[in-house]
């Protein structure tokens, strides 16, 4: 604890069993093998079972569902791609501007912006769509009450706006993680050679952030392809493949067709993945020194533009959350907006058990899943063992499959011998971990691609074991990625329902299932209360966690305080 690099936990450093021995490297090898095997078991195997459902049923092999899809439902695929492309471009653009605002501008309110980004990661499905209707519907606060309009908010435009906004936060955080890590001396060099700040930003900073931008684009694109909820609620007559697939499972009971639709969604996702891989492999900018402050002094125009975009984005998001908050306290939304506590009083104490369960699942999933993601990122980026590209693809796969499918795939894969795991809390948590693995892995690889491996080689040459290298060199650089992975996994486990509904057993209900039930029965007030509870708890945990992770030792990380963060992490398990 006393020596070592800042912000590190050096449990095994002195005289530990892993010090540079070949045993330690053996252990590292074993960990890699186990992790790769777990990816095969918890990602590849369920994915295969669901894909098989699309071509093999009623005892024979057939491609009839695919033929039907291409002859009758081509429009759905085109709709999916159209919406995903537009919302991805928007989300990444907004995300890039907001990230640049936080990392490079001289404006105030960067910390606040970061906190709001963490907040806007949390958008419980259906609730944000509900708030969209509360705001912009035919009787929406803004459109009807303020502007006197009766507009039709349903259609592809609503879907694009909602998806872009909800994916922009994640995109901003991913890009920010990379921007923070770029070598600021390159910017300095550019300035010294006579380029102005805008030119430096465009020619040096943004190109250096390319791995982050492309990773954000990949995630936003896939997420929007697989999103069935948003088009279902505000798409109106406009439908996409994921929504139709969901309806085929739940409504038409036609699993083969749904599975075919789900498989078809993987084609554009795969194309995007190939573009991503190419870009990442071609980015070879390494930073030698990591400093947090950029030497750039942006011109007023650039500064104000960044601020304007960020403020618009943030206010738009905040209005949504204020609406949800207001919904919990308004006597009757849409009729009587006066203050009332009756919805809060209507929430029974019995719901707390589900809340506790959600918290427990989410914390375990977030800690384990993120660590796993970091190790996998290291395996993919640094070890480059045979088949690492396949591993990279497999890790991305769960995101390409719409949530309910992954849930059913898990039931199909783990309900029978040799692996009977259904009915346990374990499988619920495992599902949450592996479903969110793409984010932490992607964030991790994005950071690692711009980190010069020289430091690691030197450490190895000096006798450090592989585990020490990972622990003392890789992990500290991965802090922003670790934070992002944690926040994302924690948040999604707290808020999503798609896959979980098929895996939880009666009596082990989680908070979102309850919230969803109240939405189904039309209790707008009570469901917004539950949504607010979920949002507040999630935000609190995310903020506390970011505080501990991001607190740089430079700013008062004394020995004592550093020690305090170790039990804090152990304590919340």
């Amino acid at each position, binding site marked *: 604890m006393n020596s070592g690099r800042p912000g590190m936990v050096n449990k095994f450093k002195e005289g530990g069993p892993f010090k540079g021995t070949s045993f330690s490297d053996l252990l590292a090898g074993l960990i890699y093998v186990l992790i790769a095997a777990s990816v095969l078991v918890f990602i590849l195997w369920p994915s295969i079972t669901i894909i098989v459902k699309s071509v093999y049923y009623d005892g024979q092999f057939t491609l009839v569902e695919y033929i039907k899809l291409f002859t009758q439902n081509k429009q759905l695929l085109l709709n999916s791609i159209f919406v995903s492309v537009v919302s991805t471009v928007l989300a990444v653009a907004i995300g890039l501007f907001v990230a640049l605002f936080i990392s490079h501008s001289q404006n105030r309110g960067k910390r606040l912006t970061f906190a709001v980004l963490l907040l806007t990661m949390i958008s419980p499905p259906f609730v944000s769509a509900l708030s969209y209707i509360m705001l912009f519907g035919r009787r929406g606060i803004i459109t009807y009450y303020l502007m006197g309009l009766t507009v039709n908010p349903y259609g592809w435009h609503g879907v694009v706006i909602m998806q872009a906004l909800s994916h922009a936060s994640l995109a901003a955080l991913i890009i920010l993680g990379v921007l923070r890590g770029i070598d600021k001396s390159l910017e300095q060099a550019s300035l010294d050679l006579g380029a102005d700040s805008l030119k430096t930003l465009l020619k040096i900073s943004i190109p250096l952030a390319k791995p982050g931008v492309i990773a954000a684009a990949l995630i936003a694109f896939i997420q929007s392809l697989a999103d069935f909820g948003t088009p279902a609620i505000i798409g109106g*007559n406009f439908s996409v493949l994921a929504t139709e697939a969901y309806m085929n499972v739940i409504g038409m009971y036609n699993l083969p067709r749904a599975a075919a639709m789900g498989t078809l969604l993987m084609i554009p996702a795969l194309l995007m993945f190939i573009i991503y891989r190419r870009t990442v492999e071609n980015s070879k900018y390494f930073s030698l020194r990591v400093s947090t402050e950029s030497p750039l002094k942006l011109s007023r125009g650039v500064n104000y533009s960044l601020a304007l975009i960020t403020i618009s984005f943030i206010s738009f998001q905040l209005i949504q959350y204020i609406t949800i908050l207001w919904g919990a306290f308004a006597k009757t939304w849409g009729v009587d907006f006066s203050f009332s506590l009756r919805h809060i009083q209507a929430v029974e104490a019995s719901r707390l058990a589900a809340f506790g369960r959600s918290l427990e699942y989410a914390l375990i999933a977030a800690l384990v899943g993120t660590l796993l993601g970091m190790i996998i990122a290291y395996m993919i980026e640094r070890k480059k063992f045979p088949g690492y590209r396949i591993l990279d693809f497999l890790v991305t796969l769960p995101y390409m499959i719409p949530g309910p499918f992954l849930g059913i795939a898990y039931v199909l894969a783990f309900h029978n011998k040799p692996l009977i795991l259904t009915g346990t809390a374990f499988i619920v948590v495992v599902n949450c971990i592996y479903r969110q693995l793409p984010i932490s892995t992607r964030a991790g690889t994005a950071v690692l691609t711009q980190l010069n491996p020289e430091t690691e080689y030197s450490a190895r040459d000096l006798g450090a074991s592989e585990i020490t290298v990972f622990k003392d060199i890789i992990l500290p650089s991965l802090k922003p990625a670790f934070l992002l992975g944690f926040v994302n996994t924690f948040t999604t486990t707290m808020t999503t329902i798609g896959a979980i509904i098929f895996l939880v057993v009666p009596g082990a209900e989680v908070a979102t299932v309850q919230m969803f039930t109240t939405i189904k029965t039309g209790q707008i007030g009570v469901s917004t209360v539950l949504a607010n509870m979920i949002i507040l708890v999630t935000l609190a945990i995310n903020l506390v966690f970011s505080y501990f992770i991001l607190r740089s030792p430079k700013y008062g990380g004394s020995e004592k305080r550093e020690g305090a963060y170790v039990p804090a992490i152990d304590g919340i398990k």
Partner: protein
Amino acid sequence: MVMKQKLLAMLMILFFVFSLAGCAGSSDDDQPAPEEKIAADLAGTTLKVFAAYDGKDEIFQAFEADTGIKVEYLDMSSGEVLARIRAEQGKPLGDIWFGGGVDSFIAAQIDGLLESYLSAGAEFVPAQYKDPDGYWTGISLVTVSLIVNTDRCAELGMEVPQTWQDLLKPEFKGEILMPNPAISGTAYTILSGILQTMGEEEGWAYMDQLNAQIPYYAKRGGEPPQKAALGEVAVGLAPDTGEELKADGYPIVSVFPRDGTPWWPAPVAILKGAENLEGAKVFVDWCLSEKGQQILRDNCARVPAREGIELPECLSEIKDAELQDIDFVAAGNARDGLVEQWQTRYGQ
């Protein structure tokens, strides 16, 4: 056809009797009939239930108080339950399926996913509300109503619509919301009810006209009444009378279409492979018992399936409505074809 008419007549008489009984009020409410004999060794066991029913908490607490069997439940729509138990292939992680759309139960029965159990209480449930072999038994009737926003109607200068024909008035264009029949039992019941009562040709002609009034088809059953409450549309079709929304203070009324109210029995069924099979049987017995039926009714306002149980107050208007004469088994079998046909007509 004669058979059907007979059933309809029986049904009408039944409701008449119910409502009379309702008006008269009953005096022997205080003495619950001790008709369940619960084996002592079942007390303390746990029953796992997939449920789609309002007032579950209260209902299951009452059941536990009566029998000592603890209920753990998970709220799932019938489509989700069906998808799940199909994937679980006869080894379900639940014992009981409680409430939902009868078409899902029929589909599960065809797949051999349900356990047959003829409860003693099923005798008092009219034949049209249950499966003759006891694979599922209706516990209550879900009735479709129009949830009408009175403010919006006033804005449009319209009276509250009372019939299916009223919905076709030009003023209601874009003001009527119903779910997609592919995803919603409510909407499918409306579709098959209209086709069965009006006949194929006239029925589809009506659906064509209704389709012109509907801005889009909702993909969740709960959406239309919610949108009607918020004033996004004037009329939302719903499988209940929107009591929660009314209690919240929304300017809505519910109307049973006078020219034919679609309805279906919400069943209870034991899942094949249930771990606590004996407990599950006790549960089915309890649901169909006089006392169980009263508790169900008091916590979820629906027409009780068992004869001789009073109607809940908010459904008293049902006696003025004409319930559609629907053959559920036929409707269940025709489902794939009808939904497909519907999709090609209006789905794209």
